[in-house]
Each structure stands twice: as structure tokens, then as C-alpha cells.
């Protein structure tokens, strides 16, 4: 007797046909609805099974990560914190790894959380050479190279982030392949990687890209990259050069000015002042004013006073704060601030000016007391507000 074995698709077709013929006496709408119901059922079962598989895999992964943590974390930490630079063979022996140690992608993945955790916690105290050798022994660079080359977008992005998170490294040829990719997020990650580890002029890609989109997210990340470079004694960019390049993204110019302020590059102040004299764009001017004020560049005072009368609302507030920060003790500036305090009708500006006057050295304190006596009673709340130590009046908006 011959047995004929049907494929699973044939079985599925068979059930659909049963459904179809059972419903032939029903109107078309009901038949369509029945098919819709069957499709929903199949989808539902598939999603449930998919979830179950995903949950099982995730818990297996977690167990493997825990196992690695228990087995290696203490030893890796010990190696990374050792002052003496160790040889890879020695590290391998200490970690009890076999001589021809090879890793599968999945095994490497299970090491990643532990390594990131260790680097975050002990990164500042580590012997960098030993750390890099640990990563090499565990075949992490090769793993990340493979991940960045993989077809999955997520794997690529995650690989770039993990490399940054544990101070690993990638082959330059591999990392640079996404510097101009269409996928903006991936492109940003690749560029950040280049900026973090590049040795020649890694920021050139930012200056040369006419379609650059420089969001606040990038501002945060690039600043952290610059901190990393500074901490590791790597070359730092010339920010003022970024501003002078044409055409350069406006956001990038503002970022460059803010970085000059945060890295206290006082030698750039004269050039920033001349930029301010020619600047018409409000946000860029505000960044310049904030930087010059924060670095207490006294020659900027004159330009600030000149600019003040024709400045916009936001710019005025920046100028008043910057004049207070410079705090040169110049009576003319103080007179200027006092006059504006009496003329302005905006309460926020008034508070800001009053705070600046009060902080403007000894003469400022005297002027403040005089204003307190002379101005109408309605202003009393402003003085009380400024004098109250419990209120942070610099945050008043």
C-alpha cells in the first residue's frame, strides 16, 4: 500500500479549502470575514510562538552573561588594574583560556555587558595597554569588525556604541565605510567613532559635509568625544578654524564657540570679538557673547555696550549676564546698566540687570543700595528676591 505524505503547505491549503467549501452557502461578506478571522488566528499563534522563542533566547543569553561575569569579571578587573603591562599569553593564562582560543559571535556577545560594566566603573584607573590586550585576547576587535560589516543595521549601530563604551577599537578601513552612508544614524555613529579614535584630522568630515545635520544629540556626543581625546592626550581641533571655514553648518559654528568656552581657549577671544562685530545671526552672536563673558574677556565690554541698544530681547539678556561676568569695575558700564534698569519695562530683564549690578564689585553694591533707596516701592519685591539666598536668581526666566 502506498502512503502519500503531504507537505505542511498542502495541509494548510486543505484546511482552507474545508473552510471555503463549508462557507459556500454564505454571502461573500461572510466568506471574506471568515478568511480574515482565520488569518488573524494564524497571525496570533505565530506572534505568541515568536514571543516565546524570543523570551527563551533572552533568558539563555542572560544566563550566559551571568556565567561569564562570575567566571571572568574579577580576573579581567585584576589584569586591567595591574600597573605592569602584561603580555597577551600571560593574560590568556590568567583567564584560563586555551592556547588556540577561538570565539563564536554568540560567545563574544556574552562578554560585552561585563566589559562595558568594568570599563564604566574602572575606566579612569585602568592600565590602558592591559585593557586593550584583554580585549584582544577575548577577540573583541575581530568581533566588532564582523558586527560592523554585518547586514543587520542594529548590529552595526550597536557595535559602534559598544566600541565607544568599552574603549575598544575597529580597523579604520571597516569603520570608515559608513562615514557618508545615507542612513543618518549609522553615519553619525561611524563619524563619532572616527572622531574618537582618529589620529590625523578626524573632524574634517564634519566640515566637508554640505548636508550635515548637527542636532543637539550630536553636540552632546561630540563634546564627550572631545573630552575623551583631551583625557587621552590626543590632538584637539582648532575650533576657531571651524567657524572661519565657508560654508560651514551654523549649528557646528555655534558648537565650536561653545567648545572654546568649555575648554577655556582664551587665545581665541580676540578673533571671537571680531566675529561678534560682524555677526548678524542671533544664536551665533549669543554663543559668542556667552563665551566672551564666561572667559571674562574685558576688551569685549565696549562692544557689548555698543551692541546692547540695538540687540534683540534674548541677546540683551545674554549681554547683561556677560557684562556681569566680566565684572571689570568700569563705572561707565555700571552707569549703562543702571540706566537700562530704570528704562526697561520687562520684569525678567530688570531682575537680570539688578543681579548684574549687585554682583558688579564694590561700586556695583553701592549702586544697588542707592537704587534700592531711590526706586519706587513696587520694585521692592525684586530687591528682596535678589537678596534671598534660598532662591537661585540666576535661573530666573
Amino acid at each position, binding site marked *: 500500500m502506498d502512503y502519500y505524505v503531504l507537505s505542511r503547505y498542502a495541509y494548510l491549503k486543505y484546511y482552507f479549502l474545508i473552510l471555503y467549501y463549508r462557507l459556500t452557502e*454564505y454571502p461573500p461578506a*461572510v466568506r471574506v470575514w*471568515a478568511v*480574515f478571522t482565520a488569518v488573524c488566528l494564524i497571525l496570533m499563534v505565530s506572534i505568541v510562538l515568536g514571543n516565546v522563542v524570543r523570551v527563551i533566547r533572552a533568558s539563555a543569553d542572560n544566563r550566559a552573561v551571568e556565567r561569564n561575569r562570575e567566571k571572568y569579571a574579577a580576573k579581567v578587573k585584576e589584569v586591567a588594574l595591574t600597573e605592569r603591562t602584561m603580555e597577551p599569553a600571560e593574560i590568556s593564562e590568567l583567564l584560563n583560556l586555551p592556547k588556540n582560543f577561538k570565539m563564536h559571535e554568540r560567545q563574544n556577545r556574552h562578554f560585552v555587558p561585563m566589559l562595558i560594566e568594568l570599563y564604566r566603573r574602572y575606566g579612569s584607573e585602568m592600565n590602558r595597554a592591559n585593557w586593550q590586550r584583554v580585549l584582544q585576547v577575548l577577540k573583541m576587535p575581530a568581533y566588532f569588525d564582523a558586527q560592523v560589516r554585518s547586514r543587520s543595521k542594529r548590529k552595526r549601530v550597536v557595535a559602534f556604541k559598544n566600541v*565607544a563604551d568599552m574603549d575598544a577599537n575597529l580597523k579604520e578601513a571597516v569603520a570608515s565605510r559608513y562615514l557618508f552612508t545615507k542612513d543618518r544614524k549609522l553615519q553619525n555613529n561611524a563619524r563619532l567613532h572616527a572622531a574618537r579614535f582618529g589620529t590625523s584630522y578626524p573632524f574634517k568630515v564634519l566640515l566637508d559635509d554640505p548636508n550635515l545635520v548637527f542636532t543637539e544629540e550630536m553636540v552632546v556626543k561630540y563634546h564627550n568625544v572631545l573630552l575623551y581625546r583631551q583625557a587621552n592626550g590626543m590632538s584637539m581641533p582648532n575650533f576657531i578654524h571651524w567657524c572661519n571655514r565657508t560654508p560651514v553648518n551654523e549649528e557646528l559654528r555655534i558648537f565650536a564657540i561653545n567648545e572654546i568656552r568649555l575648554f577655556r581657549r582664551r587665545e581665541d577671544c580676540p578673533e571671537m570679538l571680531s566675529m561678534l562685530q560682524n555677526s548678524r545671526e542671533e544664536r551665533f552672536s549669543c554663543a559668542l557673547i556667552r563665551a566672551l563673558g564666561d572667559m571674562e574677556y574685558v576688551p569685549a565690554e565696549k562692544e557689548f555696550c555698543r551692541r546692547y541698544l540695538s540687540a534683540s530681547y534674548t541677546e540683551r539678556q545674554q549681554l547683561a549676564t556677560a557684562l556681569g561676568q566680566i565684572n571689570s569695575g568700569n563705572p561707565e558700564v555700571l552707569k549703562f546698566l543702571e540706566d537700562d534698569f530704570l528704562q526697561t519695562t520687562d520684569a525678567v530683564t530688570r531682575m537680570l540687570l539688578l543681579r548684574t549690578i549687585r554682583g558688579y564689585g564694590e561700586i556695583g553694591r553701592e549702586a544697588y543700595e542707592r537704587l534700592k533707596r531711590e526706586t519706587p516701592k513696587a520694585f521692592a519685591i525684586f530687591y528682596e*528676591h535678589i537678596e534671598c539666598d534660598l532662591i537661585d536668581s540666576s535661573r530666573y*526666566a
Partner: protein
Amino acid sequence: MPEWVYDAFSYFVMAYSAIILGSYVFFAILAFLEHKKHYTYHDDDYTIEELKKSPYTPGISIVAPAYNEEKTVITNVQSLLSLDYPDFEVVIVNDGSKDRTLELLIENFELVKVPYAYIEKIKTKPFKGLYKTKSDNPAFKRLTVVDKVNGGTKADASNAGVNVVSNKFFVCTDVDCVLEKNALYRMIWPTMASTRRVIAVSATMRMSNGSLVEDGKMVDPRPPHDFIPLSQDLEYTRSFLIGKTALSRINAMQNVSGGFGMFDREVVIKAGGYDGDSFAEDMDMVARMIRYMCDSGEDYRVVQIPETCCWTEGPPNFKVLNRQRTRWGRGLFQFFTVHRDMLWNRDYRQYGMFTLPYILIFELLAPVIEFMGYFMVISLLVQWAINWNTIWIAFLGLYVFAQLLTVTIISYDVWVGTSFKRRTDYLWFVLASLLEPLFYHPINVFFSLRGYVKQILGTQMVWGNMTRKGVQSAKKPAAPASVAQAKSAEAAEAAASAENKKEEENAHA
């Protein structure tokens, strides 16, 4: 009734159902794409590490109005103060509470009244004073308490908070909400990553009934084990993980929840702040912000993030649910009378051309059509004219579709980083989804219709208190230090319950 009426109604319902089911499928696909994008590019730990180190991380203010919250205010303020973020302030607005809310805040956080120059950028009921701590505790220094005359609405209190906040973005929440520790990092990130100006950010909210909370922190999030909050939890999850996520993808979000949402302060002030007369003040606020942005020709985004950032206590019984849903129904009706000019208006982009028509047809009109459907079914039952051979297929299809949606949201929730520690907790969702279409949904239809009728008749509405059971605490409650304290606590509780009773009576009157 003539037969053609039944036929016409049947065809209408078929077409309406087909479109509504189609839209659900469309939303589920859009939400899938959005979750996939989020999963591909977002890494919570990496984001937090980057933001922690950076001096560019923007400050955030948290505004939480409090009215007669003496039972929970201290724990909840402690919870807000313990959030993890480099630069944030907490502004509690005491909206003229009649209980000891303000006194308790003053006692526990060592507050003193300070001479604050209050500028009323948005009109509110009179400002009474501002309190800051004199303690050296750095966490307490983040706290500001605003005391004002009761305005009768949450909107008025929120506006007073907006007048005081000093950061560019503020989070509006309720004092009883429990926030996720990293909520602020998650909320701020979309504003930084977007190329367009993000005017509001919404995050997934869940029910805290049944969860374990310790010192105002969520220790063990669990699904509610009572039917009403459980059904509402399922409803919220479906709405946030499918509806809002999908709408966020096409920049057509209709609403940022009043329970937890982040807003651009400048736009809120320019849009005139919250409307105290509105029963759906959160939806109204978003509409007015969008109106302002579109009128001034600026590009904007309203974003929904999928991770659960906030837990709130859901209505524990039908009485409270009735009050809540009637208000929502009323608010929706009122919203369309106020913002009808935005409907089908190209000037308001996706919001005017897609979101508002969708809400009008499938949210505002849905209870009316469903009610007519119930009426038809009953009338057919009376006449014994139901075709039993086909109706079971129709019901089965709808039921299976509802289950499919539930399974989909569970898988989305697991995908974006599950909020429940035990996977078996999702079985409660499955249970709720089996019962919800039979009991919970029809009741909500009735409550919504009640709201419409009240709005049409112009019945005056009194804002009833939300009766709170309080969430489970991981620690045993501390015993009162003295008999006097215990007595005063009892007296305060009795006074509060009397107050609630009085308000209930007023509402009925």
C-alpha cells in the same frame, strides 16, 4: 421598523467596521516600524551615560499640582526628588488644599516662605507665596512649592507652575504618579535627537494598582488584579504602544497625557497655557500648541516614546470610572466645539487633515454608532430576526481580532523593554482582553454618551476627587509616633472622607 432601515444600517456598520479595523491594522504596522526603529537605534544605557557627562544636557522642570493630597504627597514628592537626572527642579503647586498638604510639605522638607517676584505670564488665580528649603540636603534644594488660591481645575494650578519654572522644558505630572527613575533621560532625548523642534513628548503610562512601590519608587511593576484597573491598563497599553506610537511616526499625535508629558515652555506660554474651562485640558493644550506653531509657520514635532515612564492609579470601581469617562466624553465633545475650525483645515497639516477627522469619526461618533448597534441587536432579538448562522462568525472575527491586538501589544512591550519582571504577568492582560469586549467596553460607551448628553445640556460639572486606594508598599507603614498623631491622622482621614462625600453630593445635585 421597515426592513430597508435594518439593511442600510447593516451596510453602514459593515463599512464603518471595515474602515476602523483597517485603521487598526495600519496603526499596528506603523507602530511596528517605529518600534523597530527605536530598537535599532536606541540604547538606554548609552544615552544615559552620554547625558550624564555632558554640560549641554538641558534642564527639566517637573510641575505637579496637588489638591488635598495629604495622604500621599510626601512619598510622592520624595519619589520625584529621587529621580536620576543632572539638572532638574520639582515644582509642587498647592492649589489651595483644604487639608494639611502644605503643612506636611513645610514640615518634611524644612520649607520657608521666600520673597519671590512672581510674573504672571499665564493668567491664574492669585498667587499666595513660594516656598524653598532651608535645609542643606541637596535633593531638597531642587524642590519649590507654590501656594495659590484654589482655581477649581488642574489647568489653573499647572499654569501657576509654568509661570515659576526656569527650564526650557517642563514635565507636567500628577502628584500621585510614580515615575521611572530614568524617565527624564528618556523624555529629553527625542528633543535632542530630532532635527525639528519638538514641542511635546509623551511616554507610556501604566496603572500602578497592584504594583509594589517603596519610598515612592517602583520596585515591582505588576498588572492590577481588579477587573476595572486591569482593563484600563490594557486599554492604556494599546493606546500608547499602537495608537500614539503610530500617530507619532507620522507626526499626527492627538494628545499628550495630562498624567505625564513634557512640553516646551515657551510654546505653552505663547499658546496661552492650559485652558481652565476645558474638560480635556491636555488634548486642548496640544491642539493650541500645534495651532500656534502652524500659524507662525514653524515646523514642529510631537513625539511618543514607547518605554513605560510613569505609573498612575486607575479608577478602582465603576463609580470613579463613570466620573472619569463622563468627563473625558464631555471633554472630547467640548474639544470639537472649540477647535472645529482646525478640522479638515490644511493649514494645520496632518493634525487638521488626518488626526482630527479620525478622532471625530472613530472616537467621538463611535459610542453613538455602537449604542445604535446595541439597540438594533436588541430590537432584532425581540423580533427573533437574527441570523444565528452568520452572527457567530461576525462575533468570533471581532473577538479574535481583539485578541490579536492584545498579543501584538504584549510583543511590542517585550520588544521595547518589558515593564513587567515576570512574563507570566502578561496572562492577566490576556484575561482582561477576553472579558473587556463583553463588560468593560459597553459600559464605557454608556459613560461617554452620558458625557455628551451632559455637555449638550450644559449641566454644570463639579470636579470630583479621584478616590485613591494607594498602591502596595514594599515596606510596612510606619506607626504613628504618638497617640496624638494617630488621632490627628484619623481626624484628617475622617475630614477628607466627609469632604469627598460632600463633593459627591454636590455633583449629584
